């Protein structure tokens, strides 16, 4: 197929003269291959625009998740001793969700991006020297995914890097990829328990409810971090 994209761009942007426009339009009617090329061009441009909107949407979703977390019901990572309140809230939540089992809503209410606990931003250092974790704090999720995915291909990711890669993928809604990375975090890692919790949430998001339930059971049995939240969540499924 001959390349006419520059001509198509000029036509769409109204940059052809009156005579050129007339020639263009009569060619569209008379020449089927030219007409087809124009349709393909339009489709490609629409797809690129859709891709641009989708990227911006991901940025805004990430901004919303990190800048406005106050509406979420559970702040699991704050590890506050709120068990009494949680149990009280639980009965209300069970009543609320059990009517329709809205798994998407359950995920939305329980999913909260994990904070950067490795090396919080120190304003005195130069932006270019920020670590992956500081970039995470700055919500540069796509950049983190790009960098760590390259590193992952060489099999040199630490458990912490796998964890924050998965976190970034969850924010960007690449849940299946996040699952793969979360599953790879070793039992010896400090991030193991948190990874199990996020894995359970990711299973809910991807509608693998049996896997989610089984994992929540394991978290509950361990009686460590996240077991309270897991118990509540399990009762909602």
């Amino acid at each position, binding site marked *: 197929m001959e390349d006419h994209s520059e001509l198509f761009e000029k036509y769409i942007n109204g940059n052809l003269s009156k005579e050129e426009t007339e020639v263009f339009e009569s060619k569209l009617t008379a020449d089927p291959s030219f007409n087809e090329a124009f349709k393909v061009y339009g489709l490609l441009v629409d797809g690129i625009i*859709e891709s641009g909107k989708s990227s911006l949407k991901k940025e805004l979703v990430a901004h919303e998740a990190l800048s406005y977390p106050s*509406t979420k019901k559970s702040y699991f990572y704050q590890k506050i001793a709120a068990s009494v309140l949680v149990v009280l809230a639980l009965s209300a939540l069970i009543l609320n969700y059990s009517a329709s089992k809205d798994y998407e809503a359950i995920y939305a209410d329980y999913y909260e991006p994990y904070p950067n606990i490795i090396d919080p931003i120190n304003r005195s250092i130069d932006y270019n020297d920020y670590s992956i974790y500081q970039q995470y704090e700055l919500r540069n999720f796509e950049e983190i995914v790009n960098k760590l995915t390259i590193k992952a291909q060489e099999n040199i990711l630490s458990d912490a890097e796998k964890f924050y890669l998965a976190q970034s993928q969850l924010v960007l809604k690449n849940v299946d990829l996040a699952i793969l990375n979360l599953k790879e975090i070793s039992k010896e890692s400090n991030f193991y328990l948190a990874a199990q919790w996020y894995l359970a949430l990711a299973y809910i998001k991807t509608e693998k409810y049996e896997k989610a339930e089984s994992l929540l059971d394991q978290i509950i049995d361990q009686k460590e971090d996240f077991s309270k939240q897991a118990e509540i969540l399990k009762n909602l499924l």
Partner: protein
Amino acid sequence: MNSREKAFFELLKSGKEDGVIKVYDTFRAEFIQWCMKDFSTREADAADLFQDSVIALYYNIRNERIQELTSSLKTYLFAIGRNLALKKLKKESRMIVNDEILALSKAIVVDDSLEDNDKKRVIADLMNELGEPCQSILKLFYFHNFSMDAIASRLGYKNEHVAKSQKLRCFNTLKKLTLSHFNAEDI
């Protein structure tokens, strides 16, 4: 339009990276409260609608669909939000939304896009296979509507001609990927 709103409009028009976030943070609370009250949505759904409305506003301004606002930026943003909320409610059948009302609403807010469209989504997915710098260059040109000169400067190309050649190569690669995915009748 007051001077603060005019400043926001110019910020979005300029395509500066922090413009969208500033607009987001400024109007979020009021929009979400309004959306929850008027359309009985949950907060998460209101936030979703707000994001789509901000994107539509940004796209329309950057692509000169709105060259100057005849009403305030907030009015325009909320009108887009209203249109999207009505569509969403209609889709969910939670509210009987007369087509006439929807058409009227559309007429008020112009095209807010973000419609479901399988082909567009497939091509958007194919964009992921392109990698960099193609993704950035195509999005900067076709979505953000930056000039080739501005793209050359942002992405570190020697001049606009080099950036333009690269854009053409990227576009053709995407075309090949697309044509191998669809047959002629599909298009």
